[in-house]
């Protein structure tokens, strides 16, 4: 028994050590985690001019957002959210009137059909660091973009300072497109102090310093971005901010974002300013609204389409494309989104230039399954097998593609769905290894012509559809300064796309912001600048959390 006792004691020792060790380890880790919990750093607020009267609003506004803000720059510069909310453009775009509206620029002169545009700036606009916006900042931005940015390098040739508030930009090519581009996200104006050394177009990017309502305070990639009100912007418009700090929490998964809103972790969630992905699931909007959350929604000129691989069989045959076009029941497709989006019976939303006129001339997309079936049979396509690639990252698109598959089955075409992860999807797309895919044309308002170029111009890679006729018209549209002439070209263009069934529009997408019930906001404050100019991207200068 003595031996037995000895063994027992040793075992006891091991046992107790084991249990203690495990418990200590566990507690240790728990302790570590508490420290590890990532909360944005407490930065002392620099702006005390934001005197919130009698504490009506909470100091911090937290937004849930799906994409990193890239505040350290990148190939395409900073992210779209800061591009819109910390920087401003020379001009803004009014979709309804198809006009470019003075914004930072007071007026502009067009020479040589747009090869040179001279902008005169408004006076007294200040960057967030207090320096005034003058021609040198514009020149710097242009040169910086020309040196570092894909769009900038293909657009700008040079910029010259005419006087303190006037700058003359020389473009690589002529055409209306140059003016249109100035409203683009990427062409927003930065202060020369955004780079080191200051003002050097080949310098290293530090943080964006702009004239917009928010200024950057802190940033951690893929986790958060913290902003503060830019007092000079609020001064310019005679407004007072309703927050002292604006924190954006990056939450990549769409469902998690919604849960964050529900759980009170964020005060509001917003779609990705660029549109087309990383948005609040549309089927949740109705549910959230019923629960008391406020949904702010704006239709944007972004149309989801079925794109064909029209350069090879079988979709090089316009008849087959027509059959697919007529077979799609758009009213059913929008039901996937709980009817929160509109079915696309025209190529773009009605407010887009030329659409109403084209519609009056019969350029409308319809649902005629019988005719579609007939076409399929007459041309011997019955039982045809085609491939449709879908990007797995877009949950909604997976549903849409399944519905389309069913609808096409009814006219006799068998669609083989291939749901691919983003990288593989892009690869198949670029190598042309597909027959059908879901895609989008257009974008937020300011992108209308930019996307026209990117989707329909013969020179582009990621085109949706280009034929001699449409490509030609596209080029004419982008060159024409005269509004009326341009509209005629646009109408012709829509007609051409319609007749050739180049793409099949499905539905018009929206931009949404959903806020908690205690958030003070309005449609105007989210989708319009204080001077009434409407934009497609959500703005946050005027939101606040009621105390």
């Amino acid at each position, binding site marked *: 028994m003595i031996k*037995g006792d000895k*063994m*027992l004691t*040793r*075992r*006891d020792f*091991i*046992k107790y050590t*084991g*249990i203690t060790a*495990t*418990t200590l*380890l*566990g507690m240790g*880790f*728990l302790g*570590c*985690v*508490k420290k*590890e*919990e990532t909360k944005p750093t407490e930065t002392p607020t620099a702006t005390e001019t934001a005197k919130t009267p009698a504490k009506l609003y909470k100091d911090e506004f937290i937004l849930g957002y799906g994409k990193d803000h890239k505040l350290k720059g990148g*190939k395409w510069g900073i992210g779209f959210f800061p591009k819109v909310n910390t920087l401003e453009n020379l001009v803004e775009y009014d979709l309804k009137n198809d006009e470019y509206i003075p914004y930072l620029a007071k007026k502009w002169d067009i020479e040589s059909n747009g090869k040179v545009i001279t902008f005169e700036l408004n006076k007294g606009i200040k960057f967030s660091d207090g320096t005034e916006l003058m021609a040198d900042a514009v020149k710097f931005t242009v040169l910086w973009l020309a040196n570092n940015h894909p769009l900038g390098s293909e657009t700008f040739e040079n910029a010259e300072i005419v006087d303190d508030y006037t700058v003359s930009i020389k473009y690589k090519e002529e055409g209306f497109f140059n003016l249109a581009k100035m409203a683009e996200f990427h062409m927003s104006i930065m202060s020369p102090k955004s780079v080191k050394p200051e003002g050097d177009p080949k310098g290293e990017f530090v943080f964006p310093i702009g004239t917009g309502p928010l200024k950057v305070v802190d940033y951690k*990639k*893929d986790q958060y971005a913290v902003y503060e009100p830019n007092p000079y912007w609020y001064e310019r418009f005679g407004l007072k901010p309703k927050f002292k700090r604006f924190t954006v929490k990056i939450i990549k*998964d769409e469902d*998690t974002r919604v*849960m*964050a809103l*529900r*759980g009170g*972790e964020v005060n509001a969630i917003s779609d990705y300013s660029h549109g087309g992905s990383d948005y609040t699931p549309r089927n949740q909007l109705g549910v959230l609204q019923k629960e008391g959350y406020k949904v702010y929604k704006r239709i944007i000129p972004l149309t989801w389409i079925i794109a064909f691989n029209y350069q090879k069989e079988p979709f090089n045959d316009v008849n087959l494309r027509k059959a697919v076009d007529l077979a799609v029941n758009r009213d059913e497709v929008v039901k996937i989104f709980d009817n929160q989006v509109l079915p696309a019976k025209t190529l773009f939303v009605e407010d887009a230039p030329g659409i109403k006129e084209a519609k009056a001339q019969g350029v409308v997309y319809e649902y005629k399954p019988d005719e579609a079936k007939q076409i399929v049979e007459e041309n011997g396509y019955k039982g045809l097998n085609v491939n449709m690639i879908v990007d*797995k990252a877009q949950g909604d698109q997976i549903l849409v593609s399944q519905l389309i598959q069913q609808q096409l089955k009814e006219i006799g075409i068998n669609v083989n769905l291939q749901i691919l*992860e*983003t*990288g593989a999807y*892009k*690869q198949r797309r*670029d190598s042309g290894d597909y027959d059908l895919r879901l895609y989008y044309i257009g974008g937020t308002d300011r992108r209308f012509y930019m996307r026209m170029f990117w989707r329909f111009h013969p020179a582009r*890679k990621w085109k949706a559809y280009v034929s001699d006729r449409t490509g030609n018209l596209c080029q004419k549209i982008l060159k024409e300064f005269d509004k009326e002439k341009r509209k005629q070209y646009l109408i012709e263009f829509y007609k051409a796309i319609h007749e050739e069934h180049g793409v099949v529009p499905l539905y018009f997408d929206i931009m949404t912001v959903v806020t908690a019930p205690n958030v003070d906001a309005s449609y105007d404050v989210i989708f319009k600048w204080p001077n009434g100019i409407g934009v497609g991207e959500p703005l946050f200068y005027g939101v606040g959390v009621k105390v």
Partner: protein
Amino acid sequence: MLRYIVRRLLQVIPTLLGISFISFSLLYVFPGDPAEFIVEARYGVEPTQEMVEKIRMEMGLDKPFAVQYFDWLSKAIRGDFGVSWTEGKPVMDVILRRLPISAELFFATFAISIVFALILGIISAVYKDKAIDHICRIYSLLGISIPSFWLGLILIWVFSVQLHLLPAFGCCELKHLILPVLTWSFSFMAIKTRFVRASLLEELSRDYVITARAKGLPEKLVVFRHALRNALIPIITYFSLSLHHLIVGSIMVEVVFSWLGLGSLLVESVFKRDFPVVQALVFLSGVLLITVNLIVDILYAIIDPRVRYE
């Protein structure tokens, strides 16, 4: 003693090599150029010839397979798994950042599971073949049959959606821990309970137990002071073997409850095609298992000298 340790270590090395080989080759399972993937993952644009060439040289992808493998292995041993293709940061940094979160979830689950597995296992063994035993045995089977992702979602539905009692996602405070730990413990515990029961039953069938009972010792003493103590050795070693669940078991739970731990890192990296991270995680999970096994074996050898001569 030392000889035994050395022997075990030598046995382990070929296995480690094998694991590293599998982890590394995952990248080469398919045709297509890794360099192209890297360019796409990093820059999000279609790779041009020059970008591909640049990356290829930078990453050493132009060297033959064997050279690349040894390069990778020599760095991996030191903990350098290269740079994450999508984040641009060293893979080890990415993993270490996520480790505490998985660890918190794991240890909380582990602690709860041990306690309950012990209780249930002991009850089940002591009252063998009675109703309670059957219930526990059925629970054991249920625990491994019910998918944890399903259970998690049901719990979310009950406690979050319907009752609004607990948050459905997020880490790391106590209220965020409850549902994930409940979910994970359910299956974790089931396996452990079976083992506790089996181990204790085996002890209870030994001679010294019969002796103790014959001596007239009260049953409680027999079970707790004698059988249980002896059964605890295999039980504890078995429990410690489950450390590799840190990566494995956490996958489903982290995905359902949106915890940014190692399990969800694996899934995310696979989707983002961030292969260095995937390689590192596969390798590390294998290494973890082997290391824990090794330590446990050595501990056993300390306790039970007979093992050394096997």
